[in-house]
């Protein structure tokens, strides 16, 4: 027990002293996950919105597949991205394996379905409420998308935060395509896994504390936004 207490003390010291190695890892984590969420938003939001207002044969099947993709196992995504990016893979010429870019690609694959599926759901719900009003104003279905997206911005922000929460806490995919190389592709989750197995608990604990802080903040923000949204809707009903 004495040892653990000592480790906690060292962890606290690392955080408070602003240990450069520790913060470099935190920054890389944030950079990779934020970029991944940004790209996922650019792909997933228009896709989700189009799916939300579009009517075409097979739409139901696409929605079901998209919802199912939200639960993609990170390790399998890591494996697939690894195969794509490895030397003999179709994208091997890009030389992306074991770089932060590869990690971003893997996280984009994980986060895009989350963003797209939540956007689809939000836009579809809103469309049900808006469509008669918008039609009576002579707005076509496609032209109503900007209005729908703008009016659901709170819910869309929630979707992005949910995606970010998934990305920042994920370890399986990034460790496979990033390789956990010191000073290059070492992020919070992969470092925690490595340092724990090495017995260097202080650094693992310090990173763990920061990661929990980020995760709790993000989740808290999600539910706070959701709460505000509900309140308006409930009182309306």
């Amino acid at each position, binding site marked *: 027990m004495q040892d653990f207490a000592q480790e906690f003390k060292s962890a606290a010291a690392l955080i408070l002293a602003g240990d450069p190695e520790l913060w470099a890892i935190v920054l890389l984590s944030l950079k990779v996950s934020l970029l991944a969420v940004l790209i996922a938003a650019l792909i997933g939001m228009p896709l989700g919105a189009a799916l939300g207002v579009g009517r075409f044969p097979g739409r139901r099947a696409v929605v079901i597949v998209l919802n199912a993709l939200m639960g993609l196992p990170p390790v399998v995504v890591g494996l697939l991205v690894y195969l794509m990016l490895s030397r003999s893979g179709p994208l091997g010429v890009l030389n992306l394996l074991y770089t932060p870019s590869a990690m971003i690609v893997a996280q984009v694959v994980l986060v895009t379905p989350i963003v797209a599926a939540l956007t689809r759901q939000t836009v579809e719900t809103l469309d049900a*409420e*808006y469509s*008669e*009003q*918008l*039609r*009576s*104003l*002579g*707005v076509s279905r496609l032209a109503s998308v900007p*209005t729908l997206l703008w*009016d659901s911005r*709170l819910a869309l922000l929630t979707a992005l935060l949910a995606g970010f929460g998934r990305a920042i806490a994920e370890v399986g995919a990034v460790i496979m395509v990033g390789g956990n190389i010191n000073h290059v592709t070492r992020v919070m989750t992969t470092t925690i896994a490595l340092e724990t197995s090495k017995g260097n608990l202080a650094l693992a604990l310090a990173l763990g504390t920061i990661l929990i802080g980020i995760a709790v903040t993000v989740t808290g923000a999600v539910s706070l936004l959701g709460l505000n*949204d509900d309140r*308006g*809707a409930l*009182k*309306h009903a």
Partner: protein
Amino acid sequence: MTRTSPVIEAEGLDLTFQTNDGPVHALKDVSLTIGKGDFVSFIGPSGCGKTTFLRVMAALEQPTGGSVTVNGMTPDEARRSRAYGYVFQAAGLYPWRTIAGNIRLPLEIMGFSRKEQDRRVKDVLQLVDLEGFGGKYPWQLSGGMQQRASIARALSFDADILLMDEPFGALDEIVRDHLNEQLLALWKRTGKTIAFVTHSIPEAVYLSTHIVVMSPRPGRITDVIESPLPQDRPLDIRDTAGFLEVAHRVREGLRAGQSHDD
């Protein structure tokens, strides 16, 4: 009997919905002319096609036969030239937008400048007696106030025609009386043409210059009554002999439509 220039003209309108239980004849051979500045009420039991008729005028439904023009155009063209504002049965205000934000929605879509939006929102809020409530959220307002805000939204882009689908149906009688009085005043002040769907005989008689009585299966017009009541209508006009006479004729028309059914 002088009639002003026609704004809405329906000729031999037919509409059949294909449902799982077979075709439903929602409108059959409906012909009607609505003049500029008229206040026309549509009254009849459920399924008589009064709402469907209104939706056809608004290009929300496509007729399967006959023709209808709004300002001499097809309903779809009229909609694109912003000929009408539509007030739905439920106020349909969006809870995440303020009252002003809700009224602004059509103006945003139509691309009015921010300054012009603000001016118009202020004007229509005044028109429906909701000054000072622009910053409130819908849930902070009573049902009657919400419905007034929804009327303000339909008025915001200054269409000449107001199509109203049972706008006061969900409100209690006291609030409804008050809103009827206000709507009549608004109609007189703005000179708009109003088509108004209702279930209530007193409401139809009190408001309208013309009352269209409809009956179901198939939905059709059984009587069009031109109101002999004066333009000035205090609420207690409803106790006068003239008013009761018109109400009686409406009731007779409704009954005749029903017996046709049996």
